[in-house]
């Protein structure tokens, strides 16, 4: 590690491009040099206006429409929609599987990041590519791919098709990059002197990891976990072919929304969608909060 890196912790992370799925580095608003940020001029103000109109038309207004559609029937209608047995079962399954997958990702994602940063071996670049594949692979293809190995005619003799294990497997696949990509840059710039100091003071490897490394990684792990949870509860494409969407058994929240919509019940669809949206918002708020805390500390 060069001296400039050591002097300015955080530089390596900022230079590294954020991977798909890693929490985005925020512009540092606190650095107020005379060079900016500037106040809006007429031209940039117009640009901002155009951008906001497009962003609203594309994303904000439609998302507000979901909330409005939910509120049309009032609280009782909302409760009735989300507590309907089939919907409640779907939401419960989605949340429990998403939590389980997030737990797996916290452990495996950190481990993968550790090996990629601290270990050197031939073929490491292939692993880097493997980690990004779930992000770029079309979700329907992801389902097909998993079905090829873990389906009825898979070479391993394991058949998870149309079971709850299929939901778990599909979630695992699509959320693989998130924790890895958010932990990796933080681990890469971690000052190893502190670890060596701990070791020289007699700490065991496990103690060093638990007391020195883990606290430094915790915000990144949490951010990655939040993203992978959000992605898992909203997954649809990878499950279509794999889980069979069996009512009360392997049906997830997204499938319920689609079913309501196709049955001409947009209010119920919007109610379930609002639940998922609320979780997304909570996740984004968590990540923002964590990043602010880390920025303040740094």
């Amino acid at each position, binding site marked *: 590690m060069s001296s400039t890196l050591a002097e300015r912790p955080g530089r390596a992370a900022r230079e590294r491009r954020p991977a798909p799925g890693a929490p985005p580095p925020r*512009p540092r608003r606190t650095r107020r040099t005379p060079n900016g940020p500037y106040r809006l001029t007429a031209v*940039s103000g117009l640009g901002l206006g155009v951008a906001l109109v497009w962003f609203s038309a594309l994303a904000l207004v439609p998302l507000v429409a979901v909330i409005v559609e939910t509120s049309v029937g009032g609280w009782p209608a909302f409760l009735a929609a989300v507590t309907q047995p089939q919907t409640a079962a779907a939401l419960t399954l989605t949340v429990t599987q998403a939590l389980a997958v997030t737990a797996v990702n916290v452990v495996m994602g950190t481990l993968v990041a*550790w090996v990629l940063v601290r270990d050197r071996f031939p073929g490491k670049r292939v*692993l880097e590519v493997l980690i990004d594949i779930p992000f770029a692979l079309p979700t329907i293809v992801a389902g097909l791919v998993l079905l090829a190995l873990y389906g009825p005619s898979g070479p391993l003799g394991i058949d998870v098709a149309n079971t709850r294990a299929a939901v778990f497997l599909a979630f695992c696949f699509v959320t693989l990059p998130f924790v890895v990509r958010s932990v990796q840059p933080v681990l890469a710039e971690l000052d190893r002197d502190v670890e060596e100091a701990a070791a020289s003071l007699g700490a065991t490897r496990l103690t060093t990891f638990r007391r020195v490394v883990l606290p430094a990684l915790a915000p990144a792990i949490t951010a990655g976990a939040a993203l992978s949870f959000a992605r898992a509860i909203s997954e649809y494409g990878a499950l279509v072919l794999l889980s069979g969407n069996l009512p009360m058994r392997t049906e997830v929240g997204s499938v319920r929304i689609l079913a309501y919509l196709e049955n001409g019940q947009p209010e119920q669809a919007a109610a379930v969608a609002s639940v998922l949206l609320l979780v997304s918002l909570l996740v984004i708020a968590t990540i923002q909060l964590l990043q602010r805390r880390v920025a303040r500390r740094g």
Partner: protein
Amino acid sequence: MDSSPWVRRTLRAVVVVYLVLLVGWPVSLVAKNAFADGLETFQRAFADPSVVFALQLTAAVAVQVVVINTIFGVGISMLVVRYDFPGKALLNALLDLPLSVSPIVVGLSLILVYGKNGWFGGALEDAGLQVIFAPPGIVLATAFVCLPLVVREVVPVLTEIGTDEELAATSLGATRFQTFRRITLPAIRWALVYGVVLTLARALGEFGAVKVVSGNFEGRTQTSTLLVEQRYQDFEQGTAYAVAFLLASVSVACIVAVTLLRSDAHSPARPARARRARASTKADS
């Protein structure tokens, strides 16, 4: 904290086995299944007009989305990094929202606004523009889902390069446009390339949101991913695997390109301008 050799080897083995079982092996099986009957499956698939149409539609949508999101992405990144305005923090947070919204919710939300009985849908249809169950809806849904990808790549680089060079250019009499074209654009070009490649991969593969808004009419609004689902369920697995293989190879090629570009950008062969830009920010901090 140098782990002992056996700990390191165990961890390495666990990671390799996990990734191979979860990603490597399954992905390679699609290639195997697609070529199970040699090239015959592909010939049969591409002789099908619906398949050709779906591939063309997917390509057309992806190109439109890349253009729209690149312009929007660069513009909003410049605004968010270089300017101060009320509500900036909120906008920043909202820009990430599309990544964690379920594709089905994206589709539903667009239907509620642009559908026949939606907020604007009726008026637009009277004006002769059908959005939902038509290609414009597919473009909207895909643009929504891919929205943050360019922004997330460009914002950190814009923040990093600072404004010194831009300021110098302006003080030497460059117009705003010249400054952008000669100074800013070259500095962010790699980030922009990553963003575009990721957007392209994502746009080619969007499924859930497109399924909701397109109506999935074969030969009219059926994209490649929707075709894969339909053909697989209709027991035309050869065609499904052939198209899936095609989509998978494009997305894997995108990822490999990004991985290569990323490691190149850190080597000494990095473009001279970016290096100088970095050096100047380093000096003033």
